């Protein structure tokens, strides 16, 4: 069996005292920095990259992979604790995760996120080890039209995300799409809706928007409350770890999230993000009743977190097999390889098998460390929430500002944060949920880009959207999802349909 020999080679590389140490150090530093709101994996890896320059290539990659997992999990931690998604893929984690935290169940939420991530990570590592080359082939088969239809499917799913009124959810998606129009047009280079402000040339800052709508708006809304009501969290902390019942309830959700994340993670651009949204949407439809999504259902944390981490793992596939990074973090890793004097690309597997398999093995070890590090830390995080609001709120605001500033080192992003905080407060007052808006903002520009590219390459022939089997399948799935929302609506049972 090749695979066993290969994995043995990989573990041989990964399980040395030095590499284990750096793997742990990476996970530790990644978690530590990633837990600052807004400082996601890209910023964390960029910051810590110089630490790896002096290391041996395998050790450097192992450490970077550790930083990546740590930072990714750190993003989920803030999503659950203070309603601030560190990056787009942890937006859905806020929906039920933060509600759980408010109910004093932050511990189980963080625990299930760690456990779900570990299971998903282990499975996805196996996928990477076994199926890297064929999966990369599949990802290459995706044409612009297929991506477009996948995004359409994702957007319809966004409507299902919302808890309350369907009309408001659609309105939020549309608002997100409109905001997504701001920026430079991909095809012509023309600035659209930037009002001559250079800072808007690359579009609205996702992080500023997410932090404003979720984190800061939540702080403002809480300040309205008087006296005791102002404390966001119940003082009763409850158990720190998920109970046996929690685990049992979440098992299938973790499994579904893992599968979905493993598949979507290999698609360059947006794959891992769609995975977490899709996982949540599917849970909302198929999880066993009683369903209480949006009000602290643990499965609403387990599934997207599993999907998120599985996707993070399989997103290594295009990088390792083609040298094409599937997200900015991967691009940084490729940069690190180049500085190490290794040319990333398909040759890595044949010329430097010890590096390839060493990374694969350390993925699993990194996930193990993540679990080992985070389960004991949960108690500490949860205790932070017990801090009085007069200390907690200013701290949240300060960290939000640091996070937003760090992305581009540009003060104008802070103005965006202010504007979106005000908008977020308005949305809370109007009872509109921001999650569909975020998905619209993220998917809208990609959808447009892929549609226009599909039409450009087909020389203007729109039938390409239905003649590609993949595209057709996604469009049909989107139509089915739409029908599943619309049919009960027509039967004027809207409330029942959406209460789930």
């Amino acid at each position, binding site marked *: 069996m090749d695979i066993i020999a290969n994995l043995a080679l990989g573990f041989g590389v990964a399980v040395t005292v030095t590499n284990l140490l750096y793997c742990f150090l990476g996970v530790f530093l990644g978690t530590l920095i990633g837990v600052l709101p807004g400082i996601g994996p890209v910023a964390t890896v960029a910051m810590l990259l110089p630490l790896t320059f002096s290391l041996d290539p395998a050790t450097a990659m192992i450490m970077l992979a550790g930083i990546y997992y740590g930072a990714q999990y750190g993003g989920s931690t803030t999503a659950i604790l203070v309603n601030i998604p560190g990056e787009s893929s942890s937006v859905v984690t806020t929906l039920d995760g933060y509600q759980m935290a408010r109910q004093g169940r932050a511990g189980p939420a963080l625990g299930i996120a760690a456990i779900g991530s570990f299971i998903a990570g282990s499975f996805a590592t196996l996928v990477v080890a076994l199926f890297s080359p064929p999966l990369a082939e599949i990802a290459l088969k995706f044409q612009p039209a297929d991506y477009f239809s996948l995004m359409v499917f994702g957007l319809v799913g966004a409507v299902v995300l919302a808890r309350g009124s369907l009309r408001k959810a659609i309105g939020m998606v549309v608002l997100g799409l409109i905001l997504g129009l701001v920026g430079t047009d*991909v095809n012509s280079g023309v600035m659209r809706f930037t009002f001559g402000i250079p800072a808007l040339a690359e579009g609205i800052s996702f992080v500023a928007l997410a932090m404003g709508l979720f984190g800061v708006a939540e702080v403002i809304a809480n300040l309205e409350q008087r006296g005791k009501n102002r404390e966001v969290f119940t003082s009763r902390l409850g158990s720190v770890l998920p109970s046996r019942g929690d685990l049992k309830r979440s098992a299938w959700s973790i499994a579904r999230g893992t599968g979905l994340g493993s598949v979507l993670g290999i698609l360059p651009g947006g794959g891992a993000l769609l995975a977490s949204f899709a996982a949540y949407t599917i849970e909302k439809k198929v999880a066993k009743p009683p369903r209480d999504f949006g009000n602290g259902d643990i499965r609403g944390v387990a599934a997207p977190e599993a999907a998120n981490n599985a996707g993070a793992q399989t997103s290594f596939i295009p990088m390792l097999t083609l040298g094409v990074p599937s997200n900015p973090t991967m691009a940084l890793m490729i*940069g690190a390889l180049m500085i190490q004097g*290794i040319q990333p690309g398909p040759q890595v597997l044949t010329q430097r098998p010890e590096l390839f398999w060493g990374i694969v093995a350390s993925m699993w070890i990194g996930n193990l460390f993540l679990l080992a590090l985070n389960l004991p830390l949960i108690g500490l995080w949860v205790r932070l929430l017990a801090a009085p609001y007069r200390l907690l709120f200013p701290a949240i605001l300060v960290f939000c500002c640091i996070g937003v500033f760090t992305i*581009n080192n540009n003060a104008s992003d802070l103005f965006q944060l202010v504007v979106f905080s005000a908008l977020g407060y308005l949305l809370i007052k109007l009872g509109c949920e921001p999650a569909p808006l975020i998905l619209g903002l993220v998917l809208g520009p990609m959808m447009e880009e892929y549609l226009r*590219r599909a039409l450009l390459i087909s020389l203007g022939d729109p039938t390409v959207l239905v003649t590609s089997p993949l595209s057709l399948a996604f469009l049909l799935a989107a139509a089915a999802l739409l029908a599943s929302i619309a049919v009960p609506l027509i039967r004027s049972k809207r409330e029942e349909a959406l209460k789930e």
Partner: protein
Amino acid sequence: MPAMLRNGTLALTVALLLPWSAPSPAQEYPSRPVRLIVPLGAGGPTDIVGRYLAQALSEQLKQSFFVENRPGAAGVIGTDAVAKSAPDGYTLLVVASPHINLEILQHNKPYVLMRDFVAVAPAFSYDALMVVHPSVQAKTVKEFIALAKAKPGALTYASSGPGSNKHMGGELFKLMTGTDMLHVAYKGSTGARNDIIGGHVHMMFDEIPAVGPNVIAGQVRALATTGPKRAPGFPDVPTVSEAGVPGYEHTGWSGIMAPAGTPKPIVDLLNAEINKLLAKPETKATWDKQGAETMPMTPAQFDAYLRADMEKWTKVVKQAGIKLE
């Protein structure tokens, strides 16, 4: 804060311990950490060069050089930040060939490259490979031109965006061969590279460091290289000029510029240090493997090179009618 974090404790301690009194510039330089501003996101080729130079200069000058990414507006925001910085040698710009395109195509920028900056040193140059998907029925540049002429407007070429090197290279090719190809723009190189490997577009001019491995693996076919001479890593691949488009040349480069008014001794010191780095065999070995070549020049030579490059592409832009609107 991130800047400090990026350098770890060394930069922090140095910054805190050193007296702030103004030393005579060249003798004491660098007496505190030096910022290299990369006006693009982390992880791209310009960023990699910036980080490599920062690392090497830190070692050579016993002072921390660190990269700060200031992305936005295709590089305008970060470049402008350097233009407006004090010309004291403590803020430098990592400049690359797309800066020239930007200069020609973006009219309302808040800075003028050759007025607001002085050339310090180029570092590396990298030719592109003209690659096609293996399914394209052309084994040579001549066959490709014939194919394009047989089906005007039906062949597509990918670029990393309007005004990118890949776009300019494609337009220059169209201009010099009289062919008509469809430009398909992507947001950055990776999407474009993915689609040429996947066969969704036909052709692309892509930098050797990036696409070289895919050529060796047979995922795309190289028809030619774009430099004045053949690339060391691909001795069997002719240049575009040799292969039937005499005079076609299109080379990417990256290096360092400083705000105008930076004292000459500092510029010369940095130039000497960068050239010292480029002369090291291990530097050559590292970058050779990536398909990039060292590019040692004096500040005056670099300045002349920049002006010549600007002139050449201004003509191409005019003739091809490339516009960002």
